[in-house]
């Protein structure tokens, strides 16, 4: 029997607007007491001083690209999970756009087997909606569910044919399965590289109109209404998209939605030096979209914060802006960036962050809660608001460094991560 007392810290929850002082007593991986002050403990209880730290329940990211199998030069299940741990993300949902794609039960089992052997955090996987993500024939969804897939998506691409999507939405009901929707219209997206507007004209880069996202989202949600499917709208980038989600939520359609830190923080004006670390799909929109997305997050329109962690090699990202691949990494910088830009400036509350980045994603996928309370598994991170995070090459555990925060410094640091009562990551030790 091992006992650990985490004392002096402030915990954040979905119920309390602000952090509250609590001591946490953990025994054999489970939280056995959460009280304002726990003093009477056995002599052999290990003590971890959390004074000045914010204790956050383990984050869950519903949108991660692990690249294995196929592009292990960019990331592997092992390094992706290590990156998650580095950022305080204790659970991740892998996207199926690997090579070959995760579009059958065998692939699902293969990925989950590797994860069980090598991943430092909990790894779940999605499966494709269509075979080969080609948009024509339904994948063996039942077999993927039997293998452990907990969402289906053709992420990276929408399901182009609305009849195929309709059938998929209907078929998913047999498995009570949620569909992840990547929304864009291929023909409108065209050869675009960034948001269509004044900035794209100034830079001479081909644009992607917000209508591309809006039209597809509207289509997908109308089909969800028709079929009664549960759908999750991935990486919403525009104010128009927010309005569409609000409308369908009001109509009672079973829709949830995610927003990424980068769509909240950055916009098209950040691309002015053609830095490909600002190139992703959907693209960064305008400063007005930033404001609207943050407002929607605070109003509860968004259910999840997700990073869309998309590793690419430096070689690829050094190509010219049009040729470089879409996507940036996000697992390791998500919390620090949100604290630095929003929480520390009172633009985002901790309870909203805990709901959208820990509680709601797990509820969405019907996974057990890691809320800091008696009886739950001890899975949390210690965040030090007084320290800073510098996203240097040495800081990253991911194989890739394609991040807009690369070599930038943010206020706040994920200092320790506890999983199953064990300190799995401890930055105070490695520094010493």
């Amino acid at each position: 029997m091992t006992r650990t007392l985490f004392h002096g810290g402030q915990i954040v929850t979905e119920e309390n607007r602000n952090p509250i002082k609590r001591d946490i007593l953990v025994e054999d991986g489970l939280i056995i007491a959460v009280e304002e002050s726990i003093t009477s403990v056995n002599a052999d209880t290990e003590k971890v001083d959390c004074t000045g730290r914010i204790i956050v329940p383990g984050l869950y990211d519903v949108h991660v690209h692990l690249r294995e199998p196929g592009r292990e030069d960019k990331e592997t299940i092992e390094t992706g999970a290590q990156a998650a741990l580095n950022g305080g993300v204790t659970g991740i949902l892998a996207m199926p756009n690997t090579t070959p794609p995760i579009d059958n039960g065998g692939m699902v089992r293969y990925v989950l087997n590797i994860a069980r052997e090598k991943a430092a955090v909990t790894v779940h996987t999605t499966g494709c909606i269509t075979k080969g993500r080609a948009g024509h024939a339904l994948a063996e969804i039942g077999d993927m569910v039997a293998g452990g897939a907990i969402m289906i998506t053709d992420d990276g691409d929408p399901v182009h044919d609305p009849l195929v999507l309709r059938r998929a939405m209907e078929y998913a009901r047999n498995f009570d399965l949620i569909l992840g929707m990547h929304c864009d219209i291929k023909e409108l997206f065209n050869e675009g590289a960034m948001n269509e507007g004044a900035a794209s004209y100034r830079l001479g880069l081909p644009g992607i109109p917000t209508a591309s996202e809006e039209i597809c989202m509207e289509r997908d949600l109308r089909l969800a209404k028709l079929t009664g499917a549960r759908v999750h709208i991935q990486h919403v980038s525009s104010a128009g998209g927010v309005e569409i989600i609000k409308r369908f939520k009001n109509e009672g359609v079973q829709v949830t939605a995610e927003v990424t830190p980068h769509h909240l923080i950055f916009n098209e004006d950040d691309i002015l030096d053609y830095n490909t670390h600002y190139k992703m799909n959907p693209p960064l929109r305008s400063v007005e979209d930033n404001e609207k997305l943050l407002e929607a997050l605070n109003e509860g329109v968004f259910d999840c914060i997700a990073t869309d962690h998309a590793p690419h090699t430096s070689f690829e990202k050094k190509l010219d802006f049009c040729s470089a691949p879409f996507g940036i990494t996000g697992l390791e910088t998500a919390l620090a960036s949100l604290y630095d830009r929003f929480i520390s400036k009172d633009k985002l509350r901790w309870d909203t962050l805990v709901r959208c980045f820990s509680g709601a994603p797990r509820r969405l996928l019907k996974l057990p809660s890691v809320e800091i309370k008696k009886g739950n598994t001890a899975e949390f991170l210690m965040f030090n608001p007084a320290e800073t995070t510098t996203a240097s090459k040495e800081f990253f555990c991911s194989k890739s460094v394609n991040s807009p925060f690369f070599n930038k410094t943010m206020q706040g640091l994920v200092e320790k991560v506890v999983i199953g009562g064990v300190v799995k990551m401890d930055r105070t030790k490695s520094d010493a």
Partner: protein
Amino acid sequence: MGDILHSRVARSTMQCCHKLGMEVGIFGPATLLPAGAHSFIKPFYKYEDALAWQPHVMYLLRLQLERQKANFFPSMREYHHTFGLSQERFNEIEREGIYVMHPGPVNRGVELVDAVMDYERCLINTQVENGIATRMAILYLLHPSNRKKEAAAVEEHIS
């Protein structure tokens, strides 16, 4: 169970069963369950739920194999495991003594495993037999000359 949407058998049999006082439930790929089914019909999306409802009869429907191309389900294999009577499911059905019906012809290995055909409460061969007798009777009665003969026979019987 199965393709309710395109099945004439299901459409008329369900109404007939209802008239005879039976409770009717349907189970199959949600792509093949009709949205506008009668309100007395109880839809099931999972086999376990349908079984928990404790039916006395399971009435399977023939799967038109070309439906796979139209994306109503991904593969025969998955159809069999998810919506058909696999060996494991059949063992349970046998234990529970549930009757099995099917309008025929049967796709063996898709709607059901072979063993079902030899099950003592499988009514499929009886259905086929009765179906032939019924069709023969109808054809016989539809022929004008036979109709007269039958009418005379009936009259004779009454008098």
